[in-house]
């Protein structure tokens, strides 16, 4: 017995030793790791620095690449808007300003741009009309497969070239000399000045492009900049740093010396933590983090993104949603107010009664005033009546299970579960949720593999047509293949007419047909609330164009 006690005691001592070594070893390891992390962190500046005029921000996603003819996402457009400049650019108040072009004339079948002579690339050489010709040809060249090629279709031969029926050299754009750009238009375009501010119209210099050997836009050193900033550091997956471009023609306007996108994250809690620790100057808030911001007494700003979200319905004949009565029934049970104010609950979101968001301008004033939207009321009884008619027309006792395709994001996931419940309880419909990542969601929507898809559309240019042509039968983004000859005619009218009043009338007709046919069910216009460092001033948020825009921003010294 004494022996066994002895052994117990020695085991106990051994355990104590092990525990002590373990605890101290772990503490030491943590300390060493913290010290190592401090070495790398020490290069990070504060969120704002008034002396150096630098700002550190969070960007939701890293741009996949920055070749302006191929970019499609808002993160890329935001960065491109800071490092590049088109013929025209968006100013502080959201209006258009001269960019590389000093002046311009736009007629019925042609447009001419006179370029300023002091516009420079970041290597000091002048920006010429040839750079625009090269950039536009790259966008339209079918070999490059640009998703935004259609935005050039107003130019002569553009559509034919993109379909591969004409050589790319036949594109109706010509450099008369180094500083004059002539454009032949396929049809009259009332909004061509707004189009050329879009990134797909940015210049690309041919000799530099050739020197990158197919890696143009992939890294900081395979890009040439003509905008207010240039990328000084691009560590993929970690950081993107912009510094003031010394060769920019309008550099007196630019007060910030550097914009440091030091974090890529979409998560609101992470963004709020970075803001709280003074490591990021801006953080967007969700329904959870907004309460923290309120309790901390931080000033909160609100911003409407300009986009509109809607349920796209599949109009292919084999789908039950091709039945008008079923679409009406679905539309009649959705309470947009409840969806926005009680389910999504984020300030900045507004219920949307129409495909045309509230901020669009008509001929003389807001478009919404010129083409009013009939009020939408929830009417479950009428919806059930339409559902019965739909069942009769489809010749079924029960509507087959409907597939609702959504993007895997917290907001849309919640929205989808709410809608699933609404369709189940109010109409007795069986709805399955198909949650996919954004890219896959787009691919499945394009393939028509859905009954209902939660879609959104942000404006590309400042004209109602950027929304108005979405449901034209030829539009690639009309995923449900809605096809209506009358609507197509009105879209064509809006495209070619130069008379503002007539165009507004056409938009009114488009809105009426979409509502009558329930081509889509508009749900909400998303927005956001965010906190911004009080010393950071002059940041422009806008619906159309690069957002947020730091080109006019500065850091005040006073607190």
């Amino acid at each position, binding site marked *: 017995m004494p022996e066994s006690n002895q052994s117990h005691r020695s085991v106990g001592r051994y355990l104590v030793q092990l525990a002590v070594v373990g605890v101290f070893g772990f503490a030491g390891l943590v300390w060493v790791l913290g010290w190592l992390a401090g070495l790398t962190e020490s290069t990070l500046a504060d969120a704002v620095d008034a002396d150096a005029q630098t700002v550190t921000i969070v960007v939701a996603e890293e741009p996949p690449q920055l070749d302006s003819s191929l970019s499609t996402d808002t993160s890329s457009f935001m960065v491109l808007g800071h490092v590049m400049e088109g013929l025209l650019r968006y100013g502080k108040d959201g209006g258009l300003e001269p960019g590389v072009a000093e002046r311009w004339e736009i007629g019925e079948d042609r447009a001419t741009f006179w370029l300023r002579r002091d516009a420079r690339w970041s290597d000091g050489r002048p920006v010429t009309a040839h750079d625009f010709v090269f950039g536009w040809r790259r966008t339209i060249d079918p070999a490059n497969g640009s998703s935004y090629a259609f935005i050039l279709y107003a130019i002569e031969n553009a559509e034919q070239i993109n379909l591969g029926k004409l050589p790319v050299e036949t594109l109706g754009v010509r450099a008369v000399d180094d500083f004059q750009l002539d454009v032949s238009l396929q049809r009259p375009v009332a909004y061509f000045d707004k189009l050329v501010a879009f990134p797909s119209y940015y210049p690309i210099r041919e000799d530099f492009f050739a020197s990158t050997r197919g890696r143009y836009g992939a890294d900081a050193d395979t890009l040439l900049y003509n905008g207010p900033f240039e990328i000084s550091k691009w560590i993929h997956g970690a950081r993107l740093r912009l510094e003031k471009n010394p060769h920019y023609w309008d550099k007196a306007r630019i007060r910030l010396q550097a914009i440091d996108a030091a974090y890529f994250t979409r998560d609101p809690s992470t963004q709020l933590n970075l803001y709280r620790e003074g490591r990021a100057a801006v953080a967007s808030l969700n329904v*959870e983090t907004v309460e923290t911001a309120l309790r901390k007494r931080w000033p909160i700003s*609100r911003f409407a993104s300009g986009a509109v979200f809607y349920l796209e319905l599949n109009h292919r004949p084999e789908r039950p949603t091709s039945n008008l009565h079923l679409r009406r029934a679905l539309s009649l049970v959705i309470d947009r107010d409840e969806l926005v*104010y009680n389910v999504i*609950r984020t300030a900045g979101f507004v219920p949307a009664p129409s495909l045309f968001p509230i901020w669009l301008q008509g001929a003389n004033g807001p478009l919404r005033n010129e083409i009013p939207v009939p009020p939408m009321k929830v009417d479950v009884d009428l919806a059930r009546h339409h559902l019965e008619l739909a069942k009769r027309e489809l010749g079924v006792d029960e509507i087959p299970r409907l597939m609702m*395709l959504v993007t*895997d994001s917290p907001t849309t996931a919640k929205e989808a579960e709410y809608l699933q*419940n609404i369709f189940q309880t109010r109409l007795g419909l069986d709805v399955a949720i198909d949650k996919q990542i954004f890219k896959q969601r787009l691919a499945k929507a394009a393939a028509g593999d859905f009954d209902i898809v939660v879609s959104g559309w942000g404006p590309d240019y400042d004209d109602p047509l950027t929304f108005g042509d979405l449901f034209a039968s030829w539009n690639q983004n009309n995923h449900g293949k809605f096809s209506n000859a009358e609507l197509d005619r009105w879209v064509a009218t809006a495209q070619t007419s130069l008379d503002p009043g007539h165009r507004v009338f056409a938009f009114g007709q488009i809105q009426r047909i979409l509502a009558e046919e329930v081509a889509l069910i508009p749900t909400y216009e998303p927005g956001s*609330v965010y906190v911004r460092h009080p010393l950071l001033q002059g940041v422009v948020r806008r619906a159309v164009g690069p957002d947020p825009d730091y080109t006019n921003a500065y850091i005040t010294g006073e607190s």
Partner: protein
Amino acid sequence: MARAPLSPLDFRPAERGLQVDPILRPSLSYWEDTWRRLRGNRRATLALVVVIALLTASAVGPVVWTVDPSAQDLDQVSKLPWADRRARIVDGAGAADPSLPVARATGGSDPTGMDLRIVGEATTKSVVLEWNLSDLASGYRVYRHIDAIAGGEPLGLPLAEVPIAGPGRFIDRLNLQPHRYYYAVAALDAAGEEQAASTIIPADVVRVLSEQEAIARGFAASKIFPGAEVELPFHPLGTDALGRDMLARLIHGSRVSLFIGIAAPWFYVMIGVGLGSLAGLRGGAVDQLIMRFTDFVVALPFLLFMILFKIGFGIGPGESGILPMLVALVLLSWPGTTRLVRGQVLQIREEGYLEASRLLGAPTRHLLLHHLVPNVMGVVLVTLTFAIPSAIFTEAFLSFIGMGVVPPTPSWGSMCNDGTKTMLMHPHELVLPATLISLTVLAFNVLGDGLRDALDARLRSRE
């Protein structure tokens, strides 16, 4: 010590019925002994109670607590159980009654002359604000705060920008909860910059239900009249971000979690015992074949196969992935048990009592049923109890990443995933399912530990 010489007496037959060493205590079978020792282990007993309680709750829970786990109560979103549940019935759609008195800020003069006021009663349906228009402003921005604010402090959450063209009126509907809010309106100049703000006006929001809503919620008709006070349904563990009952979701979620957690190990341990004893007993080519196949299966990646099965079964998006999960778990997890059982069988095969039994002419069936299986049983049982928590974890993980159940079906893993989104303000939505996962896993682990101790013959001899 010298021995006495043997005598013929020593060789006479023993008398029948002579009790030499009477067994006074009742005989104890192997399982009775195990049970006795398990009960002696306090931790294991507690774990067993927890396991039984969980199984009972998931079996009879839906009968006792009949709330629909997917019913959304949007008037009680992300609420804790002790939150105020009172609501008043109002007629019509619940719009503010314009005949009701107008509430103004009391005390202190308003230098802007906006005279911000709340029209009618502030309810969870809407709060109607009105103010006087000024000639100098180009628009107004409406703010709402959850705390009283001092002068100069930020006004709170910007709700909307109201153009000058409209009336000085704004209806707030955003996520109104029954407590006090503080409203303010700031005038904007032509450039959109904020000018002086109005006085801050508090609004005590009361929760109301319209008559239609009250009917839809199934309140007794006698209770529904304007002005009546009702209590919204009670949620013993609170609600989630869509106002769904947490208790009902946890009970229904436990069915998925425990089903996978028990069914999958049960099946694959059976396969493991079968293949393992076959390999151990037969040996030779059969052993080689089975064990090499086992090595092959061990190398297969689980997640990939789970996805392959999902496609192979023709399970489209929006359909439950529970069946492919079960199949993938069963088909890919048996090698561990097989190796263990084979090892045990190889060891027991060489034991003396087995040899003796074989020499006495016992058939293979007898050897298997009376010697091999009972001796392997302990190991198998322990493996089974340890396999259950790992299967529950796998289910939770797969549902967390969205490979398991589909909405609105709950499972503990998918509830955790939902809970992470509201973790900062409403931690109960994450803590409850996470605690249940931890508790279940811990209980099965402790039980397995206790069983191993109870079944171990070597420990027995030390007592």
